């Protein structure tokens, strides 16, 4: 397990010695130097820094929420809150026998629609390729979009999904978390919706507090009584 957590900024020496540099660190001589503002974690043989700021960088197999910005005759382009545009080929939605003559792309997804998607492929030479052909993926019909900081997504999910489960159970809302910091909350009751939204915003603002789980639990219970 990780130990010796440290607050670091670019240029700080995290540690020295025979460690494998992982995310957001570089090896300079014998020193491991952080490249971002964040929290360093030293494992048995490797070192990484969890960033506290910065844009979302697509990673293969990440679940993201995308917003359709435009389409060509063969594909949609999605804003995925990153420096790159998500590329969703029409074949992925219509299936193998897609033809530009018989199928109209705007019949399935229109500009402005929200989509739950998975990053299928991404490398530095091309824009990320995304897919919606999987269970629970596809167009999002109802819900409210909440934007949080990318670096706080793991905190919102919690250990083994504990935080998000607590929010879902406490409000009866269905929450879809995109790794890109976009979260969709859907709930039958307006009260549950606003409460879940408030809880997510609270995690975003107070992510650094140690007993955040208790704080959120209190907030969820509190409203029930009134």
């Amino acid at each position: 397990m990780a130990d010796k957590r440290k607050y670091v900024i670019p240029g700080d020496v995290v540690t020295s010695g025979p460690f494998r540099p992982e995310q957001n660190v570089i090896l300079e001589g014998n020193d491991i130097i952080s490249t971002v503002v964040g929290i360093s974690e030293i494992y048995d043989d490797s070192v990484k820094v969890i960033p506290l700021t910065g844009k979302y960088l697509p990673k293969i197999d990440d679940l993201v929420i995308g917003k359709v910005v435009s389409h060509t005759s063969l594909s949609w382009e999605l804003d995925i809150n990153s420096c790159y545009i998500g590329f969703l080929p029409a074949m992925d939605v219509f299936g193998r026998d897609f033809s530009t003559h018989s199928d109209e792309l705007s019949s399935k997804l229109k500009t402005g629609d929200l989509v739950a998607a998975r990053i299928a492929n991404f490398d530095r030479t091309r824009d990320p390729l995304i897919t919606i052909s999987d269970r629970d993926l596809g167009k999002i019909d109802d819900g409210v979009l909440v934007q949080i900081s990318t670096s706080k997504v793991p905190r919102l999910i919690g250990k083994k999904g504990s935080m998000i489960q607590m929010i879902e159970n406490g409000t009866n809302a269905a929450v879809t978390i995109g790794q890109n910091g976009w979260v969709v909350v859907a709930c039958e009751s307006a009260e549950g919706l606003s409460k879940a939204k408030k809880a997510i915003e609270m995690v975003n603002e107070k992510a650094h507090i140690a007993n955040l789980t208790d704080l959120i639990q209190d907030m969820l219970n509190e409203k029930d009584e009134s």
Partner: protein
Amino acid sequence: MGGRDATMVLLDENGIRCDGRKIDEPRKIVIKAGGLKNADGSAYIEFGDNKILVGVFGPRDVHPKHMSNTDTGILRVRYHMEPFSVGERKRPAPSRREIEISKVIKEALEPAVMLEKFPRTAVDVFIEVLQADGGTRCAALTAASVALADAGIPMRDMVAAIASGKVADTIVLDVNNEEDQAGQADMPIGYMPSLKKITLLQLDGVLTPEEYKKCVDVGVKGCEVVYELQKKALHDKYFGNRSN
């Protein structure tokens, strides 16, 4: 430039300079990270009487498209002085001097930022000088590093910058406007303290080889002081009063 006081003593017999500083003492420096909501990263610096605001955007799409590079991200820097930043109104259009300083700052930041992680994108740095009093390029470079770190752009190290120079035949740290006008030499230095690498070095004036070496040493020591303040600014924003 301006009404220079011919009788002004740049360095008195006790080693005190015209604004009351010792020869190796920088002006008062205050750095604040963040502050601009719409920029991805920002910083504000007060470097003596210099007041500079920096906003950073990106990584983001490159427009115009032909400027993008498929191998790496690109860095674009705009250094701009407000019309009210100096005694007499400065015309707001970019001057020859501003274009040059933009380029110099861009080239001083490039060794630090790791834009090869973001091919086909651009990072834009906007520097606005609200008040100028000598040494704006160093102050701007210092603030730009903090703003880049605030934006979460991966960096090998932050660039700290300060000018040293020769005034009244003495090597001094942090040359102010009066000393710059009446002094003998002015040497802005940008330095990455953790990597011990110099990214910016200019010299305006004449120095002997010994004076040159001393000037660089004094400047590098000054940069280390500035670096601590940069680190403090980021610590204050992200970690508050929590310590390691």
